């Protein structure tokens, strides 16, 4: 006997993500899902961004971390609401864990929530968290071939940050190849070329994120 099911396997995640998205929209809170490999600079990006915006916007952070709270501790100095989600080995966050984390925020008093997903370019791309947009962060030290290897993330990202551009002279990273690869996959996505440690391009990034709020 054949039983027709015709169903998205991740329906449960998708439905919860939709609920989260509608709820955040009604509260006028913008949630950004930051996705990168380990070590691309997500936490440093958050540090720089919080330094710039902490007095201007009300910001909360959800830290996805496999087992530690190291990233969250780096952000404690900003005195903002932070929730850590330990995935206990899991390689991505999902909409149910985000929904639970959001319960501990006072959403009426927040403008912006950054979700630092678990460092990984494949798995987090498939799990909608209910974010307004995904932000792909990639660093020059990882090589210029990332868009072609992980097309889904770069196709769906609301913006792409290329971090550590100050390191280009010390690597074999080819900026033209990276740009061409990215443009083939997603011609219209904003690409911001930055260095979180040296400050290059950060003004453009701050302006871009401010325009989204």
């Amino acid at each position, binding site marked *: *006997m*054949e*039983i*027709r*099911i*015709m*169903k*998205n*396997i*991740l*329906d*449960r*995640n998708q439905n919860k993500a939709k609920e989260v998205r509608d709820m955040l929209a009604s509260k006028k809170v913008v949630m950004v899902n930051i996705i990168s490999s380990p070590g691309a600079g997500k936490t440093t990006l958050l540090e720089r961004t919080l330094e710039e915006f902490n007095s201007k916007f009300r910001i909360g952070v959800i830290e996805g971390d496999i087992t530690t709270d190291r990233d969250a501790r780096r952000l404690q100095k900003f005195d903002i609401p932070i929730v850590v989600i330990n995935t206990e080995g*899991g*390689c*991505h966050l*999902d909409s149910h864990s985000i929904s639970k984390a959001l319960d501990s925020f006072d959403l009426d008093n927040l403008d912006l929530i950054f979700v630092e997903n678990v460092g*990984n370019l*494949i*798995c987090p791309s*498939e*799990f909608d968290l209910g974010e307004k947009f995904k932000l792909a962060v990639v660093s020059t030290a990882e090589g210029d071939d990332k*868009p*072609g290897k*992980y*097309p*889904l993330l770069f*196709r769906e990202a609301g913006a792409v940050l290329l971090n550590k551009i100050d390191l280009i002279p010390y690597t074999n990273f080819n900026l033209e190849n990276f740009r061409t*690869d990215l443009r*083939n*996959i*997603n*011609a*219209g996505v904003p690409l911001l070329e930055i260095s979180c440690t040296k400050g290059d391009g950060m003004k453009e990034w701050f302006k871009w994120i401010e325009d989204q709020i």
Partner: protein
Amino acid sequence: MHEIRIAEDLSRIVLEAASERNLRKVTGINISFGQLVQIVPEIFEFAFREIVKDSVAQDARLNIEIIQVKMKCSKCGTDFRVEDNIFKCIECGSVDLEIINGKELFIKSLEGE
């Protein structure tokens, strides 16, 4: 690694459907994965086997269909297959596209007795 979570969600759907219909045994599961979701079938199958051990689905055959990436041009309406990760209309060159196939994580049906 996302294979594990997707296998868990699949097994939940399968076991629920099997129990609703009082199946003694699930013999086959027909699923489609889009190319963009980058599932490795061997890892998926391995994870699924572990999860459904000792259940009615433990011997189910997994029939996995991989679906190519297909887009529709919003300007000229052409449907085309994406080759080499170039998301650009093959007729008019527009990059204003809608995805038709390639992101599926889909269960079509199951077979059982």
